[in-house]
């Protein structure tokens, strides 16, 4: 399993490098935002960077999902690996774990940095930590949901329409954050959406001939 995950990471190292760079930029931005600003701005991401960064994360991971599946189909990687004693379930699981890792690399260091900065600069008021948790879990789930749309869109290799439809659906889903905010409601909706997408992706991957 570990070998499969390593291979996925190596095959899509560009996305992992992108995640690390994005994470570093975001950490730098959050530290810079705090300098000379009121601490509440740190929590509410009261900067234009927030509005730019979220779409980059969402569409970046949609692209990662699409590229992962598309590469697999074009290069017949799964077909080749299946010859070895590896089940298709494991191949898909390795892809998803690699995607998850990339998302976590982009978001977790930032969440930890913001929490540390709040601990240093802001009063110990619980609402700020609750907000950080809600905002990062909401962002994580919307990114994961868009990643799953990417996985489904990318499986149809060589055809541009599914990719365009997938991109349009990502745009639609991303607006869910605008409609619901980072409330517990969105956590429930997105969690169910991710489970449903996982089932669809699994079925798509398992039922299509390699």
């Amino acid at each position, binding site marked *: 399993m570990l070998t499969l995950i390593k291979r996925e990471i190596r095959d899509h190292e560009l996305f992992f490098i992108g995640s690390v760079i994005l994470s570093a930029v975001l950490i730098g931005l959050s530290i810079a935002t705090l300098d000379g600003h*009121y*601490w*509440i701005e740190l929590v*509410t991401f009261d900067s234009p960077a927030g509005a730019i960064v979220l779409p980059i994360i969402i569409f970046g991971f949609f692209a990662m999902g699409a590229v992962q599946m598309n590469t697999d189909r074009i290069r017949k990687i799964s077909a080749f690996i299946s010859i070895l004693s590896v089940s298709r379930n494991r191949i898909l699981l390795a892809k998803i774990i690699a995607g998850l890792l990339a998302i976590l690399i982009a978001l977790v260091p930032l969440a930890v940095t913001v929490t540390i900065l709040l601990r240093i600069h802001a*009063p110990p*008021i*619980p*609402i700020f930590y609750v*907000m950080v948790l809600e905002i990062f879990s909401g962002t994580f789930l919307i990114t994961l949901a868009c990643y799953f749309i990417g996985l489904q869109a990318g499986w149809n290799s060589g055809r541009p329409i599914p990719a365009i439809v997938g991109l349009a*659906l990502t745009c*639609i*889903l991303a*607006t*869910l*954050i*605008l*409609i*619901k*905010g*980072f*409330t517990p409601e*969105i956590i429930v*909706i997105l969690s*169910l*959406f991710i*489970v*449903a*997408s996982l*089932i*669809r992706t699994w*079925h798509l991957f398992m039922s299509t001939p390699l």
Partner: protein
Amino acid sequence: MKLSTNYIVRVLATGFVVLILLSIPLFWARLLCNVGLYLWMPYEIKSAAIEPSGLLPDNLENDPNIERHSRVSAKMEIEPLLPIGIIEYFESTSPGQSRSCLILSSSEKDWAYFDNKSGQFVFRYVETKIMPDSDKLKREVQYYIGPEGISELPDKTLGRFIEPIADNSEFKTSLWKSSKIILYDKKLRHFFAINLKDRNITKGPQLSEDDTHRPIDIGILNKNDDILDLYWMPPTINNQSIYSRKLRIHITERDPGYRPDRYILVLDKSGRIDLLDKETLEFAGPAGRLPTPATLFPTYKNATPDDLLAYRVLPVALKEDHKYRGLFAATVNWEGTALALAVFDANGVPIKSDQTWTSVRRGNRRTHSSRAVLFGFPGAPAITIGKFLLENLHPPILFLASYFTAGSFEAASGHRALFLLPNSFVAMKGRDARENIAARFLYALLLMSPSIVLAILLALRVSKDAAIVGLSRKTRRWWLFGTITFGLVGYITYRLTRPKITLVTCANCGKPRRPDTDICHRCGSKWDVPELIPPAWRVLNG
């Protein structure tokens, strides 16, 4: 084809994905219709006014030099992006708002919050002491406040608040450190008065279980105040208000000088407004109630705070005696299409009221804004019909659920609803309490009829296609039921999960049949395997 668990799970998963991805664009399309209606709403149906306001002494209001009487006016300023949850999320987490434990955040050094873990309030601020040599000594202090007392250190003996609400009107000025802060705990059912200056807390008598009072807000009573303006203008002489002539200043809660002598306003869950005696922490009588704005399908029941998109209450006192003289209350209905304004005297008796109406009369009647906004100006009927049709693209089952759950939502959250539609015409009918249940339900069914007709048409299409594809009778029945129940969502789900099999022509009936079954699913004939008869000709070598 039998229904396998795998197939059912796949269909359910696809259905849920389709439901979400269809509900989002439908939400934005409905929002676009609402934006159109709000933007083109004429000014005259956005505001209501009462003149003279009715709360001033006669000698002032009837002064012969008065050019214009006192006037109270209210205006709706419906934000097109009101339903956007992300804005509401950040607003609700700001001090004093619904999701925030923070009750004060005036500077980096002055803040206060309720600590849910310890059940105590934590106040931190800069305290200024005047020393004997008249020098000011400033020091940062932090107090922990429970129902049993105030301490500089966290202490369990201070007790626990469970579900407190605080009067935030005191925090408007810097005087809050020396004045009383009134609290109410919904679970303990006690009022409390925190006196930071003397470092003590006063507990009021407990409200008995059979007491109908259910306070939900204290002090400045408002909700979504950015979409509702409530202004009071004093009488004017020579184009100058009595304010500027410095005769007597009539003050409302927004004026820094407003310090009600004895009473504070308390809003009840039922929409009633009571006066609370700040000294005894007991109710001193009714002060009024939130007026009920008209809706498209009027309701006779009194509006509760949850039924209203916005409300604002403005108490009035005279500066010379700080005596409470009454209040103005303005409310905006659930849909944001009508406004009600009312004036209550010091005893809580309604003395004047107004609603939003069109200025043009038809015969002897004026049109109420809740109807006029939908049909009363050029372009509005087209937008309203568009909105109605969009609502009818929603799954019929959720549409029906919207009817039954219409009254159980909070008005503002209803604007952000994705699956149930508390703002739809069907839900509006669900909140209409005039007719009997059967008549109301039939009317709602009539409003739902395009959705039901569409669902039936799609279900027939699905059923026909499922028969061609060769799904079993049981599976077809489930699809028929699912498509009637979920309408467009059911149909799209079917198209996405439809078995992808290339059909072959049946030798018996000539219709397309499945190649993976023993018998033709149309005529029931078996595969017609021709007998292998050797040909009469032979290929001979040489």
